[in-house]
């Protein structure tokens, strides 16, 4: 189990009065404090780490969030923000002495401006909910994490989430225009707005991907884009991971940027096919999903050039989707991939490193070797075009030694990513999962500079204090 900061004992001792104070701020159903009802909040999408919080609050307005923050900060109570609880890095893992601020009741779309191509939504709107709200007018919100059905935009901002189509459209940071945040002491601040680039320092850039360390995001202004004329996906099947990896490098280095370029290896192909029935090639060791967009002529041209590149890598088969339904099934399998691995293994750790695409073949080979030496199976599913790896390490949580091996294996993969010139996280965030590996990426001086930045926003380290930074002596002792 991951090390937690020492709980603030005076806060634990004041539990009842703190809960009573929270109840004064919210309707009855908005405060959860009974031990049995707190239990389901003890974890998120990374269920290997668990800690029951002191209380959970479910505000419905920014003003309620502000009141909660003002109260918690005056009482010296730690706070853990939470969206849909789909984090794969334990971004919403509670602390024993913390109040979890769950934003899922803030699920309203406040404004859609087609003329200026933006939408203002509350933090608890799901990622796909934005696209669904504008799709009738042929618009969409571009970043599409695989959990887009469930994950919420507030969490996307805090993790700077990516997704399959970010190869073309950029990650969350490239699709944001403004934020409404609540500071640790309960002030409401607006940043940016319905226009390109915010005035002054790049606060928007600073807050995006800040993992709940600096403030609580309650509203988001996102850019919406006109839907492309059309899109088509193709499947390319290969004889080994390295060959598929080399093919990815050939496509990218040829100058073609498909809208999506996704990789799956044999275990992933089989698990996802069982869920999505998409016609994945079950005889392949590795498969690429390649999607292009535009008019039919553009699609034909790009698919022709990509097929020619694939043909140079001794493919087993190349198959272009023949209908919108086939494309949808291909993506259903890919988007449900992590969950689908639940069909072949009771538990998994999902890694999230990025590497330069030229390193793909070598890194995939090393991961294969590590898998053999740790004796744990890996399913590789990832955004190949971005070099954003998601090796899923399969283990059995009912066997503690298997979990410890998986943790060590994961750490080795991430160290390898840094070693070849990449970084620890592409889109899932550091959370608690990669917290203790930050020293691999950064020197102590670099970490201290980042800690000072956090202190400027959150002097008492009340916001999400168990994440991102390796625990300091002060947090260990509290």
């Amino acid at each position: 189990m991951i090390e937690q900061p020492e709980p603030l004992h005076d806060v634990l001792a004041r539990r009842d009065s703190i809960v009573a104070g929270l109840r004064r701020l919210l309707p009855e159903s908005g405060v959860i404090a009974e031990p049995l009802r707190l239990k389901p909040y003890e974890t998120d999408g990374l269920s290997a780490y668990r800690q029951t919080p002191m209380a959970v609050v479910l505000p419905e307005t920014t003003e309620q969030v502000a009141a909660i923050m003002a109260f918690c900060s005056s009482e010296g109570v730690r706070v853990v923000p939470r969206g849909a609880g789909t984090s794969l890095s334990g971004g919403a893992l509670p602390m024993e002495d913390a109040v979890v601020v769950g934003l899922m009741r803030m699920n309203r779309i406040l404004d859609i401006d087609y003329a200026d191509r933006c939408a203002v939504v509350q933090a608890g709107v799901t990622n796909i909910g934005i696209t669904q709200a504008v799709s009738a007018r042929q618009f969409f919100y571009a970043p599409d994490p695989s959990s887009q059905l469930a994950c919420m935009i507030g969490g996307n901002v805090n993790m700077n989430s990516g997704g399959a189509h970010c190869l073309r459209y950029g990650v969350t940071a490239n699709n944001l225009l403004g934020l409404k945040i609540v500071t640790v002491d309960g002030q409401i601040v607006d940043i940016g707005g319905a226009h390109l680039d915010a005035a002054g320092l790049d606060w928007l850039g600073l807050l995006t991907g800040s993992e709940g360390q600096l403030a609580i995001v309650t509203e988001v202004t996102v850019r919406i884009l006109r839907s492309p004329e059309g899109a088509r996906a193709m499947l390319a099947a290969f004889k080994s991971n390295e060959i598929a990896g080399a093919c990815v490098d050939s496509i990218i280095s040829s100058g073609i940027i498909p809208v999506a370029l996704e990789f799956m290896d044999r275990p992933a192909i089989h698990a996802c096919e069982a869920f999505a029935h998409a016609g994945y090639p079950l005889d392949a060791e590795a498969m690429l999903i390649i999607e292009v967009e535009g008019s039919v002529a553009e699609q034909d041209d790009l698919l022709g050039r990509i097929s020619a590149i694939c043909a140079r890598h001794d493919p087993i088969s190349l198959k272009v989707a023949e209908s919108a339904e086939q494309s949808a099934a291909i993506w259903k399998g890919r988007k449900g991939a992590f969950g689908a691995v639940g069909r072949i293994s009771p538990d998994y750790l999902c890694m999230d490193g990025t590497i330069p695409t030229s390193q793909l073949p070598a890194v995939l080979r090393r991961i294969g070797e590590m898998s053999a030496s740790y004796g744990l199976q890996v399913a590789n599913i990832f955004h190949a075009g971005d070099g954003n790896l998601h090796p899923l390490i399969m283990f059995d949580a009912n066997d503690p030694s298997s979990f410890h091996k998986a943790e060590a294996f994961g750490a080795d993969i991430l160290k390898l990513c840094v070693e070849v010139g990449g970084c620890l996280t592409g889109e899932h965030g550091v959370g608690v999962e990669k917290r203790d590996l930050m020293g691999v990426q950064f020197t102590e001086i670099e970490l201290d500079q980042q800690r000072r930045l956090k202190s400027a926003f959150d002097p008492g380290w009340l916001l999400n204090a168990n994440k991102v930074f390796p625990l300091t002596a002060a947090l260990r002792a509290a």
Partner: protein
Amino acid sequence: MQTNFTADQLRDPDTASSNQILRTCVHCGFCTATCPTFLLLGDELDSPRGRIYLIKDMLESGRDATEEVVRHVDRCLSCLSCMTTCPSGVNYMHLVDHARTHIEATYVRPWHDRALRRVLATVLPRPGLMRMALLAARLARPFAGLLPRGPLVFKRLHAMLRMTPANLPANAAVAPQVFRPIGPRRGRVALLAGCAQQVLDPAINDATIRLLTRMGIEVVVAKGAGCCGALAHHMGKHDPAMDAARANIAAWSGELDGEGLDAIIVNASGCGTTVKDYGFMFRAERGVWPKQAARIAELALDISEYLLRIGYAASRPAADLTVAYHSACSLQHGQKITEAPKTLLRQAGFKIVEPAEAHICCGSAGTYNILQPDIADQLRARKLGNLAATGADLIAAGNIGCMTQLAGEALPIVHTVELLDWMAGGPAPKKLKMPALAAD
């Protein structure tokens, strides 16, 4: 997900099954997004993942069910939308069934809740009692306004009175008999004549029998078969549910071993989901029951599946009507039947449209609209709004529960099979009051 059951606990077949289900869940949270109660209430505890966690904790600890767990499990509609969404293949249905049985066995509900559940479990599966109850309720209906609004007990009474049809159809329950096919016999099926549906809307069975016999299918309403057991099953009442299922299995097995059956036809999809699960329900029973139950479950088909299989064809000119197809949860999530009813309706010449949020429950969910009137009312309003926005002339659905829940508003609602029968030569459904249609 990690679980903590002792070897002793795992010797119980229900616990062993639930352990397997929990081990399949990877806690990804996708299910939250398509859960009706999570959409309305915005609380992990009212999502499938939250309930799975509460149930896991309750079963692992071996504790009696507590009020907190019961509150959130009771709010589950069992619409099974989560099972359609789940990439890992978690069988939430069997898990929540186990939890409900555990709750019924270990939790003492308040007296009024207990009494109401007993009444529902006794009356609804028995057409005679159900009819008497509805006649009595019709007398009470004018006085509904006098009931106080606040407490749950009265909200539930209101919900029951609202469900009472303004005009109770004549007593037209189908007695056990064999309906001979018109022309040469192409097949032979048993029809689950059902319980509450026969009283609320006998036209559905009539249309089914007319259509099938016209297509050359012999239809048997087997002696001894009755309620499928779902009503009791969903309230966690294990023994009455098993007794009802056993009676059906015995009755249909008799027909199967006698003159033979090609299929067992169900035209209320809520019942269909349960009949198709008989194999699992009887897996640990003694003697011939597991085998018999599995055989019956395999033969069970929704009417739309069977019609598609034998080849439906319309004989009347198309009616130029736009039908909003309401996909009952038990069909689309419980039985994964999504296309068959729409295909058939198109073959019958209707234009088909679908509402937004077609995957979200209408709030009927068996007895849910009586037991959880607040949530059911919100879901009903949401569904009716989405259906009205389609601009359709009428609604078609394959489940009596949804039909009752959504009746009485601007759009008439009929069973899919009534429309199919009409276009294949049967009478126009009476519920379509448009004069041009009724004059046939």
